[in-house]
């Protein structure tokens, strides 16, 4: 089982595949066997009990992530209203100290609809692609997207409501995003109109912040309402084509969340907090085919799992950098 292909399969919406016997590396197989010995199982139970008795505070990535989202979006607002020209434009396209930046999905929609690509847009798109490739692809979602932040706050509320039984959490088929991705790409090409941009909550929220075009926030409100009461993280998890575009970029990114099988106690804390829990399927007992695995394409690098993991089995890793240092 090729892990890269598997991560793309999951990105397109397939259920994570249960690995066959032949998929495990010798090392991983031995590790699983070792973990399954009676002594180790007892040890694992002991460790979990100990861990529950003494909750450790882990490093709060969120304390950095939320301010980052707010800071980036504030840069746009400040640049416009105080005319400081740091980041001109909106999240769909901008100029950062004069350099062209263009959101990959907006750029894709425009190019499909217009069927022409000006050099400025090529430069902007390439710059942004390289930038987000470096830091992880869907890290755009967790570290920059203003809708993601709103959605995250609503999710916290949703979890509380669900505990009281006031909110449902209906599951959807994740493949719906792939369908939407293709449909909106086709629509842009066939109609010659950027159909998706009309409803993109990311563009709408960004422009509402910068230019005060607030009417579009009604649609954002509707989405958040659905997320609050019916479907947890409806847009980000099941619908957003932007997330998929960045997932493509992230699938080959050097910045990943790294999983260390030997440290894992398989408690499942990470999957509970994850926006895209299918990428963490390997943390289930007996699933990891290698002792060390980089989490798949759909991962937003939000670091919630890293925070949740009591044993440090999940960490950030920059491929190549660990060898260099």
């Amino acid at each position, binding site marked *: 089982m090729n892990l890269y292909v598997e991560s793309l399969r999951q990105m397109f919406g397939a259920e994570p595949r249960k690995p066959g016997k032949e998929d495990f590396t010798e090392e991983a197989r031995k590790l699983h066997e070792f973990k399954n010995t009676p002594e180790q199982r007892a040890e694992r139970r002991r460790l979990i009990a100990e861990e529950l008795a003494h909750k450790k505070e882990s490093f709060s990535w969120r304390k950095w992530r939320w301010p980052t989202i707010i800071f980036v979006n504030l840069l746009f607002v400040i640049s416009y209203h105080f005319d400081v020209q740091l980041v001109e434009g909106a999240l769909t396209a901008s100029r950062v100290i004069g350099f062209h930046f263009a959101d990959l999905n907006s750029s894709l929609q425009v190019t499909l609809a*217009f069927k022409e690509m000006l050099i400025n847009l090529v430069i902007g798109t390439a710059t942004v692609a390289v930038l987000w490739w470096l830091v992880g692809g869907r890290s755009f979602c967790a570290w920059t997207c203003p809708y993601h932040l709103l959605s995250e706050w609503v999710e916290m509320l949703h979890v509380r409501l669900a505990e009281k039984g006031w909110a449902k959490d209906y599951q959807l088929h994740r493949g*719906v995003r792939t369908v939407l991705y293709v449909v909106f790409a086709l629509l842009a090409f066939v109609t010659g109109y950027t159909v998706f941009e009309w409803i993109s909550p990311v563009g709408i929220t960004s422009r509402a912040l910068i230019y005060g*075009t607030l009417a*579009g926030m009604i649609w954002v409100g509707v989405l958040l309402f659905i997320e609050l009461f019916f479907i947890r993280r409806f847009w980000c998890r099941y619908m957003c084509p932007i997330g998929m575009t960045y997932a493509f970029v992230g699938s080959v990114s050097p910045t990943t969340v790294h999983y260390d099988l030997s440290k894992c106690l398989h408690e499942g804390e990470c999957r509970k907090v994850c926006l895209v829990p299918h990428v963490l399927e390997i943390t289930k007992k007996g699933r990891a085919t290698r002792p060390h695995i980089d989490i798949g394409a759909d991962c937003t690098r939000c670091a919630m799992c890293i925070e949740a993991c009591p044993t440090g089995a999940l960490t950030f890793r920059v491929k190549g950098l660990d060898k260099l240092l």
Partner: protein
Amino acid sequence: MSDEASKGNAPAKKPKKRMSRRERERRRALVLSILTGGAVVGLGLAGYYPVMTYAKAEDRLRPPGAIEEREFLAACIKCGQCVQVCPVEAIILADFEDGFGNGVPHIVARDQACDFSCDAVQCILACPTGALTHEIDKKEQVRMGLAVLTRPDTCLARKGLGFKGTARGDDFPGLHRYIEVDRWNPIRIADHPYDLELCDLCVRECPIKDAIRLEPMSDDPNDKRKTPVVTDKCVGCGMCEMICPVDPPSIEIIPRKKYGEA
């Protein structure tokens, strides 16, 4: 015997029951996915419908350099960089309530016209996608529409009347750069009162040379009446529409209309 039968059936029944429940959940997920995904696509298409039928698209005055309307809607990446560089903030972005083209820029000339205070065509230079064509770089090359004397009967000049006071009232927030007042910064039109023997505001404040002139209405030297005549130099910026002191304005921009076109 009945005990035995139920015992024998129990293990076979149990997994079957679990499967069916899982199956039900999967089916519900699928139905919900189709419904919600369909709704999202449907809403997207609802935004396309007015573009398809072209009901209102041509009513909107686009910023300088805007390419053909359909192509313009395709090419615009909705970033608002044109909005940001405009010194008089003439360009505004469409919102949900405008029905289509969310985030696409347009100008409401009567409220705030483009008066080329930027001296060049900054919005064109700012556009990253070429929705505002990079093929032009001078204000004289712009063709947003054409000024038309839509209400000739109300025109003060045609009645031979002068004009005194602020063109659009003391509360009007619109800006214009009066070179003789401040070379670099636009000021409020409300801060610039006039006292004219014959109203010639549309000609006086037109930022384009020879785009509009006043012509006598008769050969009689005692006849003060004059009429505005728009020439092929007109770029359709809307300055005349904004400054016209009559309400509703005697002169208006017809978006995308070309000179000599019916």
